């Protein structure tokens, strides 16, 4: 029984350059599949982590009319907090956020923004809101992100005018001072967002005790009944990124398919050539008593071993490279907000054991199948014809 693997190994290595060419192509496909899948997984993991940390916490309750994607509804998307949630708010487990559309006039230019009121002492999202305790003389304290600062050409300490309308519809305007500029990787809490102390914004907008949405702490569970407010869980709030990645999946699958096809084609061709050139050897093996199925098994094993060598080769050159990319990341050459996806300045792939295991199984399966298909011809060979170097 041990004869077949030994023969297969010897034949494979004996083929020299042809074997190593096929193994290299298979190794490349193996690496690219793991690397690309790791990038997607890393992107999803990063987006989830950053979005949860800076924006959505453990989930949200939305005012019945609140829809961040519909700016026309925002004027009416505010109300007093549901009584059932008030104790959790008092304990700091739930954070109210008030959203009021407005305009800012940095250097006299007008920019439409969302004014967002947040409790300065909140511990639920990872934003440096404690700076909003500042009380600049004659101005409202505001916190903005670095993207918004770039857009408005603003620096810490700069002043500009904010204009908004109160709950009744009257315009109001006041000077504001940038008390801090935060570096945040979630453009949704940065671009077009101006953060103010919640109570200040409530007073400005004549909306006492009101909010547009509530964010719960990550260690809390979102209740199905939000006291009239709509519960929004992670699945809902992260739908954008999940949809974006799913929309890209066909492209990724096509890429994997092409890579695998390249590897499979090389092995398939090698097998066909091998069977043609080694017909006398096949005839001899049969004449010595080896059954047709064992000869087919030998050639199939020879082909399948390409995948084993490819895994070993990838481990030699690919694993260090995958590790390097996973620890150092890949710089993103453009602003993530321009494509509407939460991404960092560097992309870090994430490789799971399932990804490695799954890829090995798929590659091995494909290689084995393409090795077996040409080998079936051996079963139809006549040993005497094969010994004379003929293929029937």
């Amino acid at each position: 029984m041990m004869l077949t693997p030994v023969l297969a190994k010897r034949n494979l290595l004996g083929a020299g350059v042809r074997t190593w060419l096929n193994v290299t192509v298979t190794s490349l496909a193996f690496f690219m599949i793991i690397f690309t899948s790791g990038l997607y997984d890393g992107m999803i993991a990063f987006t989830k982590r950053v979005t949860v940390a800076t924006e959505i916490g453990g989930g949200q309750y939305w005012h019945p009319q609140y829809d961040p994607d519909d700016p026309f509804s925002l004027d009416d998307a505010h109300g007093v907090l549901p009584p059932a949630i008030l104790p959790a708010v008092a304990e700091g487990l739930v954070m109210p956020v008030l959203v009021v559309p407005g305009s800012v006039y940095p250097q006299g230019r007008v920019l439409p923004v969302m004014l967002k009121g947040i409790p300065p002492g909140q511990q639920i999202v990872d934003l440096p809101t404690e700076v909003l305790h500042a009380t600049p003389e004659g101005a409202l304290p505001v916190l903005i992100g670095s993207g918004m600062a770039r857009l408005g050409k603003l620096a810490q300490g700069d002043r500009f005018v904010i204009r908004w309308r109160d709950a009744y519809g009257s315009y109001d305007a006041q000077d504001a001072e940038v008390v801090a500029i935060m570096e945040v990787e979630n453009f949704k809490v940065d671009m077009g967002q101006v953060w103010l102390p919640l109570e200040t914004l409530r007073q400005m907008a004549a909306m006492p005790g009101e909010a547009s949405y509530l964010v719960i702490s990550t260690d809390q569970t979102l209740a199905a009944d939000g006291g009239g407010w709509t519960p929004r869980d992670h699945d809902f709030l992260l739908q954008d990124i999940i949809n974006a990645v799913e929309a890209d999946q066909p492209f990724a699958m096509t890429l994997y398919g092409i890579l695998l096809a390249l590897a499979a084609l090389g092995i398939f061709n090698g097998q066909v050539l091998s069977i043609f050139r080694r017909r006398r050897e096949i005839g001899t093996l049969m004449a010595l008593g080896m059954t047709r199925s064992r000869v087919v098994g030998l050639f199939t094993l020879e082909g399948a071993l390409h995948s084993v060598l490819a895994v070993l080769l990838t481990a030699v050159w690919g694993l260090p490279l995958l590790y390097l990319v996973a620890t150092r990341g890949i710089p993103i050459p453009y602003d993530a907000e321009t494509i509407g996806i939460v991404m960092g300045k560097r992309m870090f792939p994430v490789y799971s054991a399932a990804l490695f295991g799954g890829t090995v199984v798929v590659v091995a399966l494909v290689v084995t199948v393409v090795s077996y298909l040409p080998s079936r011809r051996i079963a139809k060979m006549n040993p005497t014809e094969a010994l004379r170097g003929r293929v029937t």
Partner: protein
Amino acid sequence: MIRSISLVATALLAGLGAPLSGQEMTAEEIIAAMDNNLSSENQVLTSRMVIHGRRASRTIVSKSWVVGTEKSFTEYLAPPREAGTKMLKVGDQLRTYSPQTDRVIQISGHMLRQSVMGSDFSYQDMMEDQSLLDMYSAELEGSELLDGRESWVIRLTARKPGQAYPLRRAWIDKEWLLPMQEEMYAKGGKLLKSARVLEVMRTQGRWYPKVWLFKDELKRNSKGTEWIVDEIAFDVEIPDSRFTRAALRR
């Protein structure tokens, strides 16, 4: 602000071109006189809106049909890019039609705050249709010389919450009864917008503002938006069909 054009036109229509004495009139009476005259039967005017940007200016030509303060219909005639765009205001409903999309869109909510054609006034500014005295209590602050002409300075304070501009100040020419200058303030007292008559004209035996300058005062170095009235006709027959949604697509 835009409403002021029809307001003044109506005042002139009513033949209030004669000088009035400030000593004999209170602020409420001055505004009431203007408000009364505001309810003009109708007017048809062709105007140019010159929007001054940072680098260049754009001129938009339009023709408007106005009945009182409730109904107005505007069709943009030039430039070619804007030609065919129409705007219909009936009561508190404002709709626009764009020939590029062949769609009628109702302007409401957040959109009302948007600038009209990139100018210095918003759709909200077009929506005022109540009389000034219904919306504001008036107080005569005194008299001032504005460009060498005697004017009353009137302070208008919103009667109830919800007026877009809780405070206004108007300089009304004593002879022409034209609001030669108007300032609109935020609730906190910051000046938001201003309007000024730069030139008046004599038409159909009446004085009428020919060139207005509107400015968003929060925009630094803004040159504002000029409104130039080229032609105006009063008491022209305007069929009701002009103020229907169907007229927008016609």
